[in-house]
């Protein structure tokens, strides 16, 4: 059985003391232990941001891609080796700013990939500009007079785009978050886990205390997953008042990989390449 320490590397995290990323890091390692996944048995793809810096602190196969472009890498890995668990860890700027197009298409395709969004409503690594998740009016370095655009809601976006597992966690509740990561990774399909993550350095509004006043657990509130519209309605509760945690929606649908007859006899990476014969195909050009 793997232990949490197995997932440490020689590098110790470089996040600001108190950063929500520490808790997500612990929860992720805890989830691997709970799932019984050994370091060599999965791949984590990371975005570029404080969140993505986790790549150097987690001992599994990893891929630190380009800012906003991690999801296509994760989907490519999955298509090449669908037997390997694949996770995506990225920031709200990475996954919903630079990479929002890829995010929507990954939801549509239902690749079997679990995606963790570090939702801190800012760009941390580039020192505190607005993120798509910033509240309208939020004053940041790049929006000193306040954000004009509407706030992106990762939950409703994922629900409408077709993700088959949509949940929210909070880095202030590690056991609950760990459990959600376990469920997201176990889910057969595209899983989106929006993680509320205080950035103690650049976001002085959405602090641990601010979140604690608003979060509640769906499973303790009598919420039932009945229909998608009901899930969307719940996800539309006003950000400034109530922040539901837990699973909004989960459904079973064939994954992208399930739908490829090419993968029926095993993953691409195990294909025997020694007896390829194109002569029949070549004949068709006569």
């Amino acid at each position, binding site marked *: 059985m793997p232990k949490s320490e197995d997932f440490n590397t020689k590098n110790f995290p470089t996040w600001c003391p108190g950063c929500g990323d520490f808790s997500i890091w612990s929860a992720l390692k805890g989830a691997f232990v709970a799932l019984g996944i050994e370091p*060599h*048995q999965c791949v984590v793809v990371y975005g570029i941001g404080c969140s993505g810096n986790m790549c150097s602190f987690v001992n*599994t196969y990893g*891929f630190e891609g380009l800012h906003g472009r991690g999801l296509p890498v994760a989907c*490519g*890995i999955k298509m090449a080796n669908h037997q390997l668990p694949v996770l995506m860890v990225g920031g709200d700027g990475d996954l919903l700013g630079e990479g929002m197009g890829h995010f929507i298409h990954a939801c549509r395709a239902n690749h079997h990939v679990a995606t963790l969004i570090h939702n801190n409503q800012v760009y941390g690594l580039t020192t505190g500009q607005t993120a798509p998740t910033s509240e309208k009016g939020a004053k940041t370095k790049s929006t000193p007079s306040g954000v004009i655009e509407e706030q992106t809601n990762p939950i409703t976006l994922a629900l409408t785009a077709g993700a088959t597992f949509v949940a929210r966690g909070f880095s202030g509740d590690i056991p609950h978050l760990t459990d959600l990561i376990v469920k997201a990774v176990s889910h057969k399909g595209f899983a989106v886990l929006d993680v509320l993550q205080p950035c103690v350095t650049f976001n002085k509004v959405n602090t641990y205390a601010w979140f604690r006043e608003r979060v509640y657990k769906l499973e303790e509130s009598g919420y039932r997953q009945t229909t998608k519209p009901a899930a969307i309605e719940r996800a539309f509760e006003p950000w400034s008042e109530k922040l539901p945690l837990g699973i909004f929606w989960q459904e079973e649908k064939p994954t992208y990989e399930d739908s490829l007859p090419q993968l029926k006899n095993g993953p691409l990476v195990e294909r025997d390449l020694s007896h390829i014969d194109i002569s029949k195909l070549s004949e068709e050009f006569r």
Partner: protein
Amino acid sequence: MERFTWKIGGQAGFGIATSGQLFARMCVAAGRFVADYSEKPNRIRGGHNTHQVTIADKPLYAASREVDLLVALDKDSAFLHLKELASGAAVIYDGEKITLTAEDLGRGDVTLHSVPLARFAKEVGGEEVMRNTVGIGASLGFMGCDFAPLERVLTSAFGKKPEHLVANLKAAREGFEYVRTQGGGHHACPLTQKLSSPHIVIPGNEAMALGAIQAGCTFYAAYPMSPSSSILHYLAGKAETTGMVVKHAEDEISVINMALGASYAGARAMIGTSGGGFSLMVESLGLAGIAEIPLVIAEVMRPGPATGMPTWTEASDLQFVIHAAQGEFPRVVLAPGDVEEAFHHTLLAFNLAERWQAPVFLLSDKNLGEHSRSAPPFDTSSYRIDRGKLLTQKDLSGDKPFKRYALTADGVSPRPRPGLKGGVYLSNSYEHDYFGYSDESSEMRVAQADKRMKKLEGIAHEMPKPLILGPSKAPFTLVTWGSMKGPVREAMERLGEEKMKVNIVHFSGMWPFPKKETEKLLSSQKHLVLVENNATAQFGSLLKEQTGIDIKDKLLKYDGRPWFPEELMAAIKERL
């Protein structure tokens, strides 16, 4: 040497390309050599489309511009191509639909032959597109050939749909007989000689696609873009036969990142696009460079900038692919010159990509990608898939952290695929240490940068060398690269027939640049003439930068059309 050029022209949407391909296959089935050329504006309906096929009794390298027999499906087709008609050429048109006289055309040296194309098509119960089939039958009659080769290709094209086959055969036969009874068939038949084993007739894009299949590519991703899309269409159409996963991704950035993911995971991966799509991929090209991930990239060029001229040709992305992306890293650029090289360089590209863990370009263009040439079926007997330092489980001992980016003599370090025990590492777009973890120290930066760049020395030994074609010495040496090989070689052959001696130095291994071989080949030649399909002599600049050789005499064409053999011949004759 006998050459004959047939051309069909009409409105877009009337199956011009299909008819052209059918005609080419027919000629090849009859044991001839062919090369084709097509033009289509960038729209689906209403523009003027053409397809022409040159037929010869010995190997042919490019289609001629000059036309001997034109099937004009509408009036425009006759007038638009007046200048291309050879003296003594014939035009087949439908006199029941359009009026056309030699006077109108102002060409007393051209004969007009009316064939009721539409009526015959209708009589056999066919739709309007079947006019083309009547026209092909009429052409065959006119050329004085047997009907048999046409029957054979129609049977293989429509064999699965018997009612289509019957109608097409009838339509073709009507056209054929009509011309014969009208006294056609006086032309010397260009289809008499037979090759004992017929060739295949294939465009460059499909040749690359076949190469990818043979090379063990199991993942291909693309976003549709002319003129690269037929690679996607071909591979997607064969995916369930070959087992390849073929992904039409949401955009080109996704395309390249998916392929990098698949390659990192251990699959042989390829992507295809044109210059516009490749522009979007540029940052990710650097990711392949720094993370040392094998990748084959087909860049099928068209005239730019921006949307440019989507369905036309140009070879103006050479400097772009050599220099694209910030920072410095090794890459390979191959520019196949003909369908054989399109196939074999693709095989090579996969081996180079994995042996050197680097991105490898197949730089092609519309001229090569979408035009067919006859060739013997590709010989695959000597090909061996070489996956380089890709590790398997038994190569991994397992207890210590794995040094994926360990320093080695050739710059290439062993690469496990995720899932193997004992190989855990990070593939990283940041500068990194031996394990892949982010590292910004000056020592590690220099060590890793040197390690990567060192690969170029090794790659250089495995690159295709510049080829000298024709006599080893000649008064004029045409220096060219990529798909210009076809027309330049054809021009050389024809000049030879007229007792004018030229030779060619052709480059298909563009980067790393073959400095030594080039200096040796070019320094002994008398008069160098650079031939390129772009406005700024991009290869000329590269040559000068790498060797100091400055070719002053340049033939540059950038009107969206390839060089035609006749144009090159005229240019050389001017210099004699």
